[in-house]
């Protein structure tokens, strides 16, 4: 195929030379944001909320460029940015003649400059992203400050590795003070593993502690749906909507379930409800 930028033969839409050229100026390869407006936002917060406005991207690219030229910079932030891009934008890399793990390689480069436990945490995250769970566990265990964050990460990792007994021991310790966040981590880990029954029980407990946790209701609905219990799924979705009336995902799933069950009247009412609060269903391809 031809490179869309220079027209030369290429294996991917952007050829090797063009990729190298872009990479020199913009190490993160993305030059313009996917978002409109150019609002001021703290870099850490922007990464956390995926708000990569033009200026934010420019700052990150400039910072990365300087860091790669040995001029220093906030390496921890750059590692986080690389990890963020790997998690959310690695599809973008397929357009370039570059390795699919380019963002992770960048993260490794930056994290090697971060010292102490902070650096170890970052390396642990990279290792996890690479799918090397045993290696990740080794790094995690080398962390000297074995605080709550460490325990939580370890428990999560153990669930991911399928070491349920070991994970359970840590969770029992962590769950003594009924922290919904810890319950959430456990539930999400079970959900990701596909242990829907277990996840369902934990989500049900979360909504007992925190009645307005719409995400827990939503995940409950997904569990019910995967387990084939559509009635309960619909109930959970209605709860999710009453906990957060702007939770579009719940509306969309509930509409789909109503349609599947041929519940025309309920579907119509739900659509009207969405419209009434300003969520136009046609924006999301329904209605």
């Amino acid at each position, binding site marked *: *195929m031809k490179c*869309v930028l220079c027209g030369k033969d290429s294996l991917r*839409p952007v050829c090797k030379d063009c990729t190298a050229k872009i990479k020199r100026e913009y190490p993160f390869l993305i030059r313009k944001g996917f978002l409109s407006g150019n609002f001021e936002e703290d870099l850490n917060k922007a990464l956390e909320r995926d708000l990569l406005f033009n200026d934010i991207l420019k700052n990150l690219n400039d910072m990365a460029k300087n860091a790669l030229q040995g001029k220093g910079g906030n390496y921890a932030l750059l590692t986080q940015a690389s990890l963020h891009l790997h998690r959310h934008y690695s599809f973008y890399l397929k357009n370039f003649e570059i390795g699919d793990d380019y963002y992770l390689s960048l993260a490794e480069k930056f994290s090697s400059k971060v010292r102490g436990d902070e650096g170890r945490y970052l390396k642990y995250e990279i290792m996890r992203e690479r799918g090397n769970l045993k290696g990740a566990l080794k790094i995690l265990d080398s962390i000297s400050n074995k605080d709550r964050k460490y325990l939580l990460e370890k428990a999560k990792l153990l669930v991911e590795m399928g070491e349920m007994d070991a994970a359970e021991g840590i969770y029992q310790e962590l769950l003594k003070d009924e922290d919904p966040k810890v319950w959430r981590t456990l539930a999400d880990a079970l959900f990701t593993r596909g242990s829907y029954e277990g996840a369902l029980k934990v989500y049900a407990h979360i909504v007992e502690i925190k009645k307005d946790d719409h995400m827990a209701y939503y995940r409950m609905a997904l569990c019910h749906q995967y387990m084939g219990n559509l009635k309960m799924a619909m109930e959970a979705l209605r709860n999710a909507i009453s906990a957060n009336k702007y939770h579009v995902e719940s509306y969309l799933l509930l509409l789909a379930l109503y349609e599947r069950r041929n519940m025309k009247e309920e579907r119509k009412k739900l659509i009207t409800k969405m419209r009434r609060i300003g969520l136009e269903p046609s924006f999301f391809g329904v209605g």
Partner: protein
Amino acid sequence: MKEIIERMGMDEFVHLCNRLVMEMGFKIRNSVYRENIAVFDAYMPLPGRSLHYVIIFIRKNKVSKEEILDMIDVETVEVRWMIITTGKFEDVDDLKRRDDITLMEWEDFERLLREFGLEEEMSREQRGKEIRESRILPSVGEVESMLQWAREFWEDENYDKALEYVNNAIKIKPLPSALKLKARILRGMGKYEEAISILKDVLEANIEDDEAWLILGEILEDMDDYEEAEEAYAQCVRFNHRNLACWINRGNVMLLLEKHQEALMCYEKALSIRRDVPSVWNNRGVVLKHLGKYDDALRSYNIAIEIDPDFADAYLNKAYLYFDLRRYEEALNAVEEYLNRKEDVRGYILLARIHMKRNLKKEAKEALEKALAIEPGNQDAKELLDKLEGRGREERELRRLRENMEKARKILYENLDKLRKKYEELGVSNEQVENMLKETKNMLDGGEIVDALLHLLALMQEIHTLEIKSLKNMVEKDTSMLLDLANMKVENLKDLSPKELELLREDAMKRIIISQIEKGEQGGEGMDMEEIHKLEKEILKEVSAGEEYKGLAHILYEEEKWKELRRIGDEHAYNALGLKALANRRYKKAVEYFIKALNKNPSYRAAEFNLAYALLRRGDERRARALLKHLGLEEYMEKMKKGK
């Protein structure tokens, strides 16, 4: 008159429309205007309800159907639209037929101005001056109108909406009445601390505000803090000795605190203010009963019934009193009166007790069955029924367990059937599974529920393993064929994971395509040129819209290659085109593109954020806000507005 209107500044025109809307009897909730259009969000109060109207004035000679449809949302229910122009409408016959849309042209507009006496005002210079100089800030009337709406929403228990209106009113002027209403709304929402904090501010400004003390007492009562609630009510009546609601509430709190003498005093005070409130007489009766003054209590209940013969609770209390006094005939009469007015569990249980005392078992059973029909799980009714039928607690438990076991057996049968079907669909034969299916059924038939359950779980695992195995075989076979075509050799195909097989297949596919193209280019053996071009087209198709090159559109956007960009039809392409339209201030187009992007992928947060931005730029604040709320980025509403 038309000339005068055409010469008016937009401010004057809006004021004229505002006055006309008010003269027509509407209450205005909100108004906006731009260019030559003024929009009023209003309602027409009617006895017992109100109609929601959006009234749009357009100062233009010709108004097309498209312009109207651009301004109104025809699918919104419960809203009526009134569109008034200084000119004429074109091609709007179908709109005229709709019940929810009223269209008025200049003749109608002129008639309205004349009918409501605004014509004369406009023609007089002095009046015109008044219109020009009339208020810009919202008036007290408007604040009151907002509060009225808030009150109505509060009464309907639509607290979110009530809060929105009361907050708007407070923004204009933080009147104590508005703050107290807000506290009541927050109470309804269960946000007690927030409500208390508002009431504290109100009381700091005026310690003698008895209504604020009353609301505070009610909130503390909701929080089960009866001692503090009593204190608040004491303050309330200290500043307003004739606050009836407060005396009643205070009496109720005293009753809960079992301070019967004090409760009686409160009800007496309430009765000294108003003697025709049946609930006070009724509660007074309850207190007197606690104090052992049965005759007085009975008199009190009778007065409540005299004032309101349909006041059911007084009959029930009267029945309880007779029952306690073992006057069962009179108790029966009273409870029947109660049940005639209100059929509930308490009434039927009391009726059953009376029948039981009179040894009328059949009637008692009937009453209990009615109670259980209303509330199937009512423990008192169940226990009474068991007592009546001579059953003990253990027998009850056993019956419950049996029922549950039967239910479990039914569910296990259903699941076994499902598993059998699944196994048959797999089209493989496995002796072990077949044996397990038989054994599980035998166990269920024999009532060995626990063993059957364990077998069923093992069976599920077995069938799942069979499924995976069969799928893996298929994938291996398929991959092996592709590897042959790509001239690739892999020895340990069976040891690879599904993910690894997938990667191998992708690699093989690419090699096949590339080798075929190379052969074609070298003119060697392989496909003919036509086939090669076809294949190239396929690959390019993949480049332009395929999953593999997701985000290519964004690169084209960065490079400003619009022609190529338009050929791609994925969510990133529509998002990129939307961004371009936004930059060119073509907001309508931008909205269309972002909607297309979202339609392609409803979880595409960037497109949703951009859509909110574009909608805001088009003046559709409501929808923009809703999208930002969904994204958890509501604070960007202000940032976007500032950006505007």
